[in-house]
């Protein structure tokens, strides 16, 4: 009886699964495939706001409303599609979450659920253009908002007296504030395949290409809800993807990261792997360094070094720019035209705290949290002082040895006695080791109290190194050998009979 029931349940389940799959397959067979991302244009919108509501400005606004789309079409081409020119049914791979119901690009409205037809078109970039005029001069401020990333760009200001050149200049500014994006796929820890949205479209104006010769992207993971809304956006921290060879916007990118395994394994679930271009849109980025402790403390007076990536076969010396954080823990990173990104190394004394790739100017403010190294740094300072005293003591010892030897050769035995007494009164290795022990015990105890095992390990290593220096330079052999040598010399000179 039990076997029959079990068999019956299994059969029902199999039948149900088959029906379901048949249904979904039939449904999918009727739906068109989404466009590859390379063929998907960016949905761009702009609004023009006027400050001074005089007739001339109103006229200019109307004029731009008409001419801008034309200029965009002429300069950017199909790569951008203006939001007001797009039917609500047109959706792109970039804007539709995976594994969700898809809508036909040419489907009739009847095929589209009413709720979807009323949904606003997701815009990739929203431009805000603000115009103000004074006699003889027109000032236009252009800024961009990317709704998905909730990111606002800096504002570019155009001033001109010639309204005819305004559309092209505005479009150039819009292009400058534009950040291409794409989808990435992990190959291994160092390589990723990237497909850039809109890359398949031709570039009407070569002055306004989609991609720079070397383009740097930040990888993101965008998680969606079951309903298809964005649940959360998670950037892969301190990681850059450098694209310098692409074919129609697709290519392998090199991964540069401050993390050991930045990309990890492929995430599961409703997630899309986006990559957004990082461009130096600000003149300077403020890099804020603070500790990971709670509350976070700014890292003041820390050295920050900037250098470019070492390329194999590159014989050019690597120029390192060295900066110091100010009293707010901030150091300004100025953008460099020929170098889109740099390695930023944060040090604490002799210890490197972090090394991350950054694009100066990509963001107004960048925050980098690093481990709290103050205890180790303080210990390093104490050890440095101890080493300074060690150097002085060694130098003095050496001087006394030489002087004693010279006095011995001259048979100035009183001087020899005085010098050797001074020599023996100098602090020896034991005294230094006692001081070292005091430093080590106190620092290690503090590290344990803070449960900072990393600091503890480093402190112990530094103390061991210092101990090695003491052993090496303050060996008692030299003094003992000198005393023996002088005794022998004295004996030889006093027992030799006169000729």
């Amino acid at each position, binding site marked *: 009886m039990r076997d029959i029931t079990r068999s019956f349940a299994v059969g029902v389940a199999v039948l149900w699964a088959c029906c379901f799959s048949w249904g979904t397959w039939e449904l999918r067979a009727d739906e068109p495939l989404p466009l590859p991302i390379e063929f998907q244009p960016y949905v761009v919108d702009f609004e023009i706001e006027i400050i001074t509501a005089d007739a001339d400005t109103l006229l200019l606004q109307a004029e731009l409303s008409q001419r801008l789309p034309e200029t965009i079409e002429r300069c950017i081409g199909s790569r951008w599609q203006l939001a007001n020119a797009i039917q609500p049914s047109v959706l792109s791979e970039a804007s539709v979450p995976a594994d969700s119901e898809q809508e036909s690009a040419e489907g009739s409205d009847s095929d589209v659920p009413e709720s979807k037809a009323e949904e606003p078109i997701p815009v990739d970039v929203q431009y805000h253009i603000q115009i103000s005029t004074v006699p003889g001069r027109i000032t236009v401020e252009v800024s961009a908002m990317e709704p998905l990333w909730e990111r606002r760009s800096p504002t570019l200001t155009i001033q001109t007296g010639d309204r005819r050149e305004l559309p092209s200049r505005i479009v150039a500014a819009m292009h400058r504030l534009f950040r291409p994006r794409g989808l990435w796929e992990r190959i291994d820890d160092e390589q990723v395949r990237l497909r850039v949205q809109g890359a398949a479209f031709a570039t009407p104006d070569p002055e306004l290409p989609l991609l720079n010769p070397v383009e740097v992207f930040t990888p993101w993971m965008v998680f969606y809800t079951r309903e298809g809304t964005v649940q959360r956006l998670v950037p892969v921290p301190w990681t850059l993807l450098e694209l310098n060879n692409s074919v129609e916007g697709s290519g392998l990118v090199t991964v540069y990261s401050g993390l050991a395994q930045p990309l990890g394994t492929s995430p599961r679930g409703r997630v899309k792997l986006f990559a957004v271009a990082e461009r130096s849109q600000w003149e300077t980025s403020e890099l804020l360094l603070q500790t990971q402790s709670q509350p976070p403390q700014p890292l*003041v007076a820390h050295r920050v070094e900037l250098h470019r990536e070492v390329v194999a076969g590159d014989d050019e010396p690597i120029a390192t720019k060295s900066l110091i954080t100010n009293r707010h823990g901030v150091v300004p990173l100025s953008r460099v035209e020929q170098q889109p990104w740099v390695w930023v190394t944060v040090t604490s004394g002799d210890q490197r705290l972090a090394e991350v790739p950054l694009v100066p100017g990509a963001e107004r403010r960048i925050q980098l949290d690093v481990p709290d190294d103050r205890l180790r740094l303080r210990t390093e300072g104490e050890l440095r002082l101890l080493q300074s005293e060690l*150097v002085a003591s060694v130098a003095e010892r050496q001087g006394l040895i030489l002087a004693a030897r010279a006095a011995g050769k001259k048979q100035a035995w009183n001087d020899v006695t005085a010098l050797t007494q001074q020599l023996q009164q100098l602090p020896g290795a034991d005294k230094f080791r006692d001081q070292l022990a005091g430093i080590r015990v106190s620092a290690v105890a503090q590290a344990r109290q803070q449960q900072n095992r990393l600091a503890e390990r480093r402190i112990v290593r530094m103390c061991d190194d210092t101990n090695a220096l003491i052993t090496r330079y303050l060996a008692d052999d030299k003094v003992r050998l000198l005393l023996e040598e002088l005794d022998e010399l004295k004996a030889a000179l006093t027992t030799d009979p006169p000729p």
Partner: protein
Amino acid sequence: MTLAAFRVLAVMCLCWNLAGMVGAQAPATTNTDPAPLTPAEAEEAPLPKLVDLKTPNAEELLRGKPVDWLVLLNQDVIFVEPVKPRPDTLAILKQRYEETLKIPTAVLPLEEKQAKLHELQRIAVTLLDRSEDPEYVIETRFLEKIIYFEDHILKRVALLLDERNYATAYELLMYVDRRHRGWPGFDEQYYRFLFLETGHWADVGQYERAMIQAEELFARKPDYPELARLFGRIIDGLLKERLAEEDYRAARHFLARLKRIDAMHPTGERWTQLLQNQAQELAQQARAAQQQQQHREASILIDQAVRIWPDLPELRATHRELVDRYQILRVGVVVPDDSSIKTMRAAYPYETAADHRHRQLCELPLFEPERVQDGLVQFRSRFIESWEPGNLGRDIDFRLRLRRAAWESRPVLTSGEIVASLANALDPQRPEFDGRFEHEVRLVSATSPESWRLQLTRIPLRIESRLRRDVPLTPETLAWSGDLNVQAATRPHQQRFFQAEDPGDVQIFQRTRLQPASPEPWHIAEVQEWPFPSWELALQALLRGEIDLIPQIDPTDLSALSNDSRFFVIPLALPQTHILQVHTASPLAQNASLRRALLHALDRSLLLKEEILLNAAPETGRLTTGPFAQNLSAYNRLLRSPNYDPIRAAALVATARKQLGGELPPLKIVLPPDPAVLRAWPAMQSQWKRVGLTVEQQIEPNGPWDLGYRMVQLTEPTDDLWSLLHPSGSSDWADLTVYPHWLRERLWDLEQTIDWTAAERVLHQIQAEFLVEARWIPLWEVDEHLIARRRMGGLFTRPMHPYQNIERWTLQSWYPTETP
């Protein structure tokens, strides 16, 4: 017969012949021919005649052998060595002869008497140019006279004086005086010499020398003819010179000297009257100026009047009145005019002692140091009446004091001006930008015209020290205050006293705010700094009453002046610390061995004792281990002073040489224009040289340097420490990269502390770390003292600087009346 007796006989025969011609006026051609000479005598040359001989010249007299001339009855002259007794040899012999004659036989036996009488009729001589037996005896009856050597000299002196050859004449006179004091005729010639030479000095304009000589002549012979007239001529010349230099004190001095000689001398009386008239005239001008409200001119004029002739009784009251109304403080400062000092001043990139002193006098910050108490400097404010912390001390509400006391010399500041000034310190684009202040301040705002709020990012350690900033004068400030001197507008950072334009050497500072006209105690209105090329001259001026204050006493005279009841000797609250600062861009900043070598190579004890303190007042100086004053709690007393160890220094030099690739670069040092430093510098250089370090003085303005000799008084160590970390005093971390990170972290800890105990601990650690690494080279600290005449009132007992509280100082009317 012995040969000698034969010679005596021969001379006697000769004299006998000559005696036959006694009374004859004619020369040798007389009727009584001398007896024929003996064959021996025939071989000798004839004796010269007196008339043929000339007085020896000075060269002969001074260089040659002394010679007396024996003039025989026939006027022949025999040259002999000086005879005895002298002078009046013949007279003395004759007197003795007569006295001997009178001696009874009972006393002197006859034979002896005869022998003695025989002897007394002769004179023993030593002939010149005789190598054999030059001794002779001549009977005195054959001698007419003896012309002594001294007489020759005096005769020559007379001739020289006629020729106005004073130097040689004086030499001859002294020769005579040395040979035989009181020689007859000496005094006469000497007086003549004095008189003539005095006239000569007067003729060539050396009146002071003439005066000395004339006084000497007067002391010896008051009734010397024409001496009074000569005095008149000298005094005329002296006083004309002195009055041309406006040195009335000297003029009165010489008049006093004349009066001691002749109280009624017409020249003296004439000049006395002239000076008195001049003083009275100036007094009248002063009175006139006062009536026209020109109080400064009145004060200056009346002071000039009393210095011309202080004894006029009517001047005293006038002086008191006018000087009290506009009080001028005369300060003496030592400004050596040595060319090396001028070079040092041009090349020194830091504030000199004079600059520091002027800044303390002129600037009026919001908070200024007032006194040292319990190891801490306490501050006070002229502008801020009260302040109230809120938000656990992060917000501070300040209330301004808009009313000013009559004695105060300051502008009236509103909160708007203060806020605007502080905002400039927070603006990175402004030259006044202060990064540390900017980090501490969240917001500064004016809440009303007389109150403002400071919002901070954290609790301050001492807000007073952070507000040691002055608020520059603006046209608005001048207008709002209403009673500021318009000239002060040209010097916006001089709010208390401002430097008036004066092309001379004297630097003049006047109150920014004129004192109100209401009758109440007046205070110092003006400070004049008079330069003197040396301490000795400055002290002389103080003792003479020309100045009233010297801001820094030389240690050699400290003890003596401390016991002088005429003056206050006041120690300053903080000593001055001498320290060598290392330039952050120098290779020295990167090499600890080299720095330590510099430290240990100097025998600081010896330098301090011998060069700085000049072996005087040892209690006023001591070695130090850091830049903080030792009477402040910030000073780490547990640190052992680095010892003088040339062996260690030499070893460190060898180590540094190896580290730097085998060669040590010569180092450059900038030195302040200070006489004590100038004295110590050669010894320091030599001690460094001994261990192999070459350190040269940088004399080029804006030239590169490795070491800077600083003389500092850090009133607030937590803030003032930054001035020693970088040559420009910058507190920007980007400028301090030369320091290792752990040291920067220590400095950051200091900046973050909010309680004084923790701050002290960190300061002690920093001092220790800097000493071990020799990041600066501490030398010594020296106590400073100022000296002021007791006519001054309102002085602090232990001021922070020489001009502390000067707005309340008063000067009583006083001028020197003693005869100089």
